[in-house]
């Protein structure tokens, strides 16, 4: 997990939430465009839009970056024009 040392200019990220999550926390709004560079940036931006949302995202979701599923890890770098989809975290047997 390299840390994003030299801060590069934020870029546009498309953030998506599931219906259930958006009903609970964002008045049903499911799609957002925010400026970010890392997952930390995405979470902060979402938390600015909906104070408290950031913690819910950290606690309750995994995220799919262009479909690839990751745990929420601040330092993960988001590629340009990526779609970041927050989904319920999965645990198996």
């Amino acid at each position, binding site marked *: 997990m390299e840390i994003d040392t030299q801060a590069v200019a934020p870029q546009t990220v498309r953030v998506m939430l599931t219906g259930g999550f958006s009903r609970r926390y964002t008045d049903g709004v499911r799609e957002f465009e925010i400026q970010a560079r890392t997952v930390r940036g995405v979470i902060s931006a979402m938390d600015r839009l909906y104070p408290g949302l950031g913690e819910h995202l950290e606690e309750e979701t995994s995220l799919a970056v262009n479909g*690839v599923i990751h745990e929420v890890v601040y330092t993960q770098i988001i590629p340009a024009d990526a779609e970041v989809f927050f989904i319920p975290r999965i*645990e198996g047997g």
Partner: protein
Amino acid sequence: MLTNTKNTEQVFKSVGTSPIRPDGVPKVTGMAQYGADYSLPGMLWAKILRSPHAHARIRSINTSKAEALPGVKAVLTSADLPNQNFDYIGPERVAVNYWHMTRNILAREKALYEGHAIAAVAATTAAIAAEAIALIEVDYEVLPHVIDVDEAMHPDAPVLFEDMITRGIEPAPTKPSNITKRLEFKVGDLDAGFAAADEIVEMSFKTAAVHQGYIEPHSCLARYGADGQCELWSASQGHFVVRAYTAKILGMEIGNLVVHPAEIGGGFGGKTVVYVEPIAVALSRKTGHPVKIMMSREDVFKATGPTSGGSMTVKIGVKKDGTLVAADGVFKLQAGAFPGSPVMNAAMCAFAPYIIPNVRTVGFDVVSNRPKSAAYRAPGSPISAFGVESVLDILAQKIGMDPLRLRLKNAVKAGSPTPYGPKHSHDGYAETIQALLDHPEYNKPLGKNQGRGVASGFWFNGGGESTASIHINEDGSVVLATGSMDVGGSRASMALMAAETLGVPYASVRSTVADTASIGYNHVTGGSRVTYATGLAVVEACNKIIEQLRLRASIMWDVDVKGVVWEDGFAKPADKSVGEFEPLSLKAIAAKRAVTGGPIVTEAAVNAGGQAPGFSTQFCDVEVDPETGGVKILRFVAAQDVGRAIHPKYCEGQIHGGVVQGIGWALNEEYIYDKLGRLSNAGFLDYRIPVASDLPMIEAILVEVPNPNHPYGVKGVGEANIVPPMAAIANAIQRATGKRLTELPMSPPKVLAAIDAV
């Protein structure tokens, strides 16, 4: 880095071989120690009193007679455990509510299922503890109970929690019910989708609660000291999670609890939670003696997690050419006595293998007077797949299409949409279907009363937190430790990946599982995550140790570290300009350990992402006895995308095991309750898991579509295989008899009734 370029080449020395596992000999000689195999001087035995009632208010518990019995050292009730806040913590699907958990470990206000733990006794012998249990007087007010999920959802059903309001419905209901949660995923326009369909099938299904059926009952041994420090030997799928839950339930500081990973005798998801551990620790704290608890098989069936039974309705629309246009599914799952069925997974996985533009899944999490459900192999996915894959088979027949080709036509690949939102990022499904289409037996004709059924399954597979450490010994041998319980050969796969990365022989890597005080956090061995996530930690640790080895070599040669490369287990000069040096082996470098800086050791920790899902497609041939309804499995072929098989024999073993568990689920396994809500088949005689003579050889086909996010292409292999069998067998029975079974298990009386139905 050279090691990385080497790793990207697809030629391997160790990965893909099937050597004998490091923990093999102790396990074939009886020397390996499982949960019940530990003892300590001065040890007491504990027994647990369990509720004889399915639903009862506990008016009072009188333990005085039990305490007075000679040899009894302590009696424990919920009064000895601290209160917990009512709060759902963590991910929605597995939100932990300690208010519920502590009540499952020892009942408080109410007993919510037969077998619910009420009190525990620690005594000098197991016999005295058992005698003392019988002396505990509990004053119960027996309440009406409810077992079936549909009945539990009825407005007039007895309510387990008088204040439970369904979550996920706006506006929130005012009346309490047994429905703990509603959830929904929706994409596209259902009405438009179904309007465009040429054929639509809508059908309802039921699945029974089935137990993980591990052969080892839950057991543990605890030793709590007067200084507040405690050691716990426990067989679980995750000793770090056992530590966290036990400490929280008892109000302990996590650092004061060391959990030693006993060998685990099977878990399949059922040993990712705690039952006896907090009781053993609390009794040890109370008595000052080590305390051992071993559940009986009856306890295991009555009080530990089966997976949910379900009730569902599935509706799918298809065009004549086989294009799926719309799908709708409603899934109601039994959570057991406390919230938390895998209904969200059931809803997310239901249609996940297929490109369907208009799709909705609705899920309900429902409590009833059964043991709290626990994870079981791809939790939730097999339940919804039974309905979905059955309906697909009907549609295939309606449009006259081969059922595999129908699946292939709609199979997801990288970039396809998912019903829960994000795009799929991996191929692998189509390849499993093709593997069966190419199978020589798939098109062979069958005999009288025989039928062939196919079905597929999806599972996410897992990532998450893992830690690995590596120590190079003075003789060049390697000690590898992780904190991931080895449930089926992971020590071997970890050693294989380490050997591959370091360029040393498998035999020189000692692969171990360390206790909670000896290595960083590892999440449970579950979700098919260990070979992927812990494997990543192992590879990263190896790469870090290689950096150290290059540094040590550069110190020995007195050259710049940049001038040293690592190849095939040797440090070598990068080129002539560095100088003329004989390659240095691990052993040669290790011999100079002290003078080059001391112990050669490192640890790597990850919170792994980038895991790839597992797809499994299977076909089976069955023969149905038209006079008895007996179903014989003649052939079973299971193809699964494993990414890359690190240890092929254990990958095959995972598929064999998952398929056979699915066969049991399909044909005979079920929780059977009497009128009083008591489990009437709490033993291996009447809870019928498959025996050797019931089965043919299961044919496992390892499909390898590597995961680019893992240096060796690993995906998970443990779970996807249990998803298809129930539907595959139902489809085979239908093609053998013309009768569609919609309720599990498809036991002989049900099959015969279907055959005889006019």
